[in-house]
């Protein structure tokens, strides 16, 4: 250990003699080229302490893995890919410094500890940026990895800050930095107060990690602040759980809603339903592939484009299946199970042959990434969009069924085929398009599920049983039943999970469904009249 510090000391001495000033950023950055992770951390500390804003691009490049050292002379450059070569940029001046083949350069490696130091250093250095958003995220970075070195920078920035939100965030960042500095006790007490008022898990985390080094007299303050946060969190936890339940329910709803048509309305035990979802997800993948190669600027729109594509593709496949197989099997629901099982095997293997057995990457558009806080709730954007999406599909379908001519015909055919036929409805045509509609909706569900799950040939299999449970639990032939069924199963699952664990929770839900069906053999919302008999 001692030897290690000595060597660092020696190195710093060497640097000092080499360069004009000890904190000459150029020399420090060049030294990064030779440092291991531990030494690099120390160097970064010095670079941050220099408070020289010119180093920001170099540090950013380091963070992004764009900082390289030239093998020949050990000079460090920011690089941009330029064909097979790397375009070199001077780390401080930003001036172009020619090109070099990749082989002549070595990438500067970075690990998590370094990343943490970089985040803090960059936060401190960009506190004075003219861009409001950069200042805000800088304050955030300082708040998340507080260090005593940043304290003065924060205070200097705070003095100049005019924007209300940024200022508030900087106050918090300052408080966090104060806790890890050697400021007097009363300043720290005020800081604990400030952190405590932020609330949430992050605040607890900051307080807990600071508490070890704090003066013993501050202990009660810390405890008070933490217990205050925890009591408010306990309340929000309940809401958070409900939200998780709703979000799980919306996924179940998405998976089940196409089945509610093919199985619920038409009475086909459609084992190929899961494969329609899977094909929808692959359609999303294809759309994104095309966009990536030909129009990358449209990437954020990829899902919006994928929805109609998936609907048409899976709808068309559904149409073919109905015309080719299922239309011969009406009135024999249990045999539809066998035939669609065969169809599902073939579809799975086809997808496996075309796309390979491994997962395919479907990207999240920027508007579906990340999360936001709503009071004490933390809500992720992708889940929010999926809830909204599934509900809008549900209501869209409801309107189609109840308000459109096609919906009317569809209901007429399922309720009394012969009567509908004698009224001049082309029942075969209605059957085919009803099945296509159900398949198409399953495809749309696949678009959404591609955002949260694997896109692999097995995707459908993992949802098929849950989908059947939802439809049966809710009541076959009733869309509202599917909605209520999906949401209540989702919430139930999420309330069981924390107490009994995910595995047992799932088993209990299944047992409860079995028991529930004993009580109401036709599900939650039993269809009156000529129910679909199997």
């Amino acid at each position, binding site marked *: 250990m001692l030897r290690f510090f000595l060597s660092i000391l020696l190195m710093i001495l060497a640097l000092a003699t080499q360069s004009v000033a000890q904190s000459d950023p150029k020399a420090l950055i060049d030294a990064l080229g030779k440092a291991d992770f531990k030494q690099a951390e120390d160097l970064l500390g010095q670079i941050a302490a220099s408070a020289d804003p010119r180093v920001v691009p170099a540090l950013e490049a380091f963070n992004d893995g764009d900082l390289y050292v030239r093998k020949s002379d050990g000079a460090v450059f920011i690089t941009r890919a330029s064909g097979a070569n790397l375009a070199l940029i001077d780390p401080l001046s930003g001036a172009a410094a020619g090109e070099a083949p990749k082989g002549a350069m070595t990438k500067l490696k970075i690990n998590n500890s370094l990343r943490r130091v970089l985040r803090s250093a960059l936060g401190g250095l960009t506190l004075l940026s003219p861009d409001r958003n950069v200042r805000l995220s800088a304050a955030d970075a300082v708040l998340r990895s507080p260090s005593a070195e940043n304290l003065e920078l924060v205070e200097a920035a705070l003095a100049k800050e005019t924007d209300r939100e940024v200022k508030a965030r900087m106050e918090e960042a300052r408080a966090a930095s104060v806790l890890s500095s050697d400021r007097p006790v009363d300043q720290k007490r005020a800081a604990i107060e400030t952190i405590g008022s932020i609330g949430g898990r992050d605040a607890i985390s900051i307080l807990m990690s600071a508490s070890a080094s704090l003066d013993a007299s501050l202990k009660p303050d810390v405890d008070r602040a933490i217990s205050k946060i925890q009591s408010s969190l306990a309340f929000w936890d309940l809401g958070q759980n409900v939200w998780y339940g709703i979000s799980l329910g919306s996924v179940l709803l998405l998976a089940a809603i196409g089945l509610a048509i093919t199985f619920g309305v038409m009475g086909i035990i459609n084992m190929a339903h899961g494969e329609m979802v899977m094909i929808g997800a692959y359609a999303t993948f294809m759309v994104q592939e095309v966009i990536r190669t030909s129009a990358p600027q449209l990437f954020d729109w990829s899902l919006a484009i994928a929805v109609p594509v998936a609907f048409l593709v899976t709808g068309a496949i559904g149409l073919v299946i109905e015309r080719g197989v299922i239309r011969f099997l009406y009135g024999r629901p249990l045999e539809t199970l066998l035939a669609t099982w065969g169809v599902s095997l073939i579809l799975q293997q086809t997808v496996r042959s075309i796309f390979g057995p491994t997962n395919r990457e479907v990207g999240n558009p920027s508007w579906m990434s990340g999360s936001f806080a709503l009071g004490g709730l933390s809500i992720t954007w992708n889940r929010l969009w999926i809830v909204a999406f599934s509900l809008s599909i549900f209501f869209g379908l409801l309107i189609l069924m109840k308000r459109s001519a096609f919906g009317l015909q569809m209901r007429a055919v399922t309720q009394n085929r012969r009567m509908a036929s004698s009224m001049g409805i082309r029942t075969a045509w209605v059957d085919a398009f009803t099945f296509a509609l159900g398949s198409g909706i399953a495809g749309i569900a696949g678009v959404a599920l591609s955002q949260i799950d694997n896109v692999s040939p097995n995707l459908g299999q993992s949802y098929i049983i849950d989908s059947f*449970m939802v439809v049966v639990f809710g009541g076959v032939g009733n869309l509202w039943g599917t909605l209520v069924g999906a949401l209540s199963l989702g919430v139930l699952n999420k309330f069981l999970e924390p107490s009994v664990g995910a595995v047992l929770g799932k088993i209990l839900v*299944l047992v409860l469904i079995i028991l529930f069906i004993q009580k109401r053999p036709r599900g939650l919302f039993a269809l009156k009249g000529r129910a*679909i008999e199997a």
Partner: protein
Amino acid sequence: MISSFFLRALEGRILAAVAVLLAVALLVPAANLLTAPDSALHIPTYAVSLMGKYLCYALLALALDLVWGYCGILSLGHGAFFALGGYAMGMYLMRQIGSRGVYGNPDLPDFMVFLNWKELPWFWHGMDMFWFAVLMVLVVPGLLAFIFGWFAFRSRVNGVYLSIITQAMTYALLLAFFRNDMGFGGNNGLTDYKEILGFSVQADGTRAVLFALSAIMLSLCLVISSGIVRSKFGKVLVGVRDAESRVRFLGFRVENIKLFTFVVSAMMAGIAGALFVPQVGIINPGEFAPANSIEVVVWTAVGGRGTLIGPIIGAILVNGGKSFFTGAFPEAWLYALGALFIGVTLFLPKGIVGTIQHRFAGRRAAKAADEAEKSAADTAVANQIQAAE
């Protein structure tokens, strides 16, 4: 009248099938043990175990046919009874390993030792006795079927709803047996058996006996099933299948009839599982997978539902095909399997045996059957109208 005609025809067939099975039970082990390996008549041990496995599947399909073909209960969870029977036998075989396990613990199976269990869970006690294990092979699936059926049939859960909750049952059991805390070895299951009743499970002789036993059990269950469906009870059973409410209005306790059949069928499935395990050498939660149970339905449908012999042939054919295609066309066999299911449902709706029977029965019988079907359809419509009102 018509049905009695069919039954008489079937009786001869059942007899023939039993004779074939018993002959196979005798000849295959003989061809395996008594002939020289290079003789043309020799059947390698590999093939004996393979055929033994098919026979166990055939018994499972037969059990399903009893409830599906004759009682109209489409169980998508029959694999669960099969697996439970298998687990009971597997537990016995695990206990027989004794101190020959890798850790040499005389009481605890290996998986419990390395997961740091200190003593045997209560449900493992007694499983070292063969008679007790055999009892459990019958009792555990039977009891589960009884409890499940007791609730389901009394609440008149039927049709698709029943199918789906049987699927839920096997799925729940799948998840439960995957849990290591359950004490059944988690996903690795029970394996690496040494001996059964003191005979090495790997010895050719033991394999031959197990094979013969599977064939004998299958014929025994075939006779029992045939006896059930040919009795007066069997006719009521078919009545339940075709017009449940009528039978109920006639004063029969439909739920008890269903329950009895369901329990008998579950026990048969349990026996199939128990014979399966020592021949295959492993039982693990994968047997509970809903897809497996659906496959059983497929075998039954391929062979011909409601014919008793059909499921046996279906199980052997599909599994034989699977063995062949997974080796010959590893990349494409799923296409063949999928196409088979679609083809059978579209072109052979009565299954192989059903279609052949249909042909053999001649035109007159066919016509009569059509009429019967039509009248059945009419009553179904009448029932529906009644129900609607």
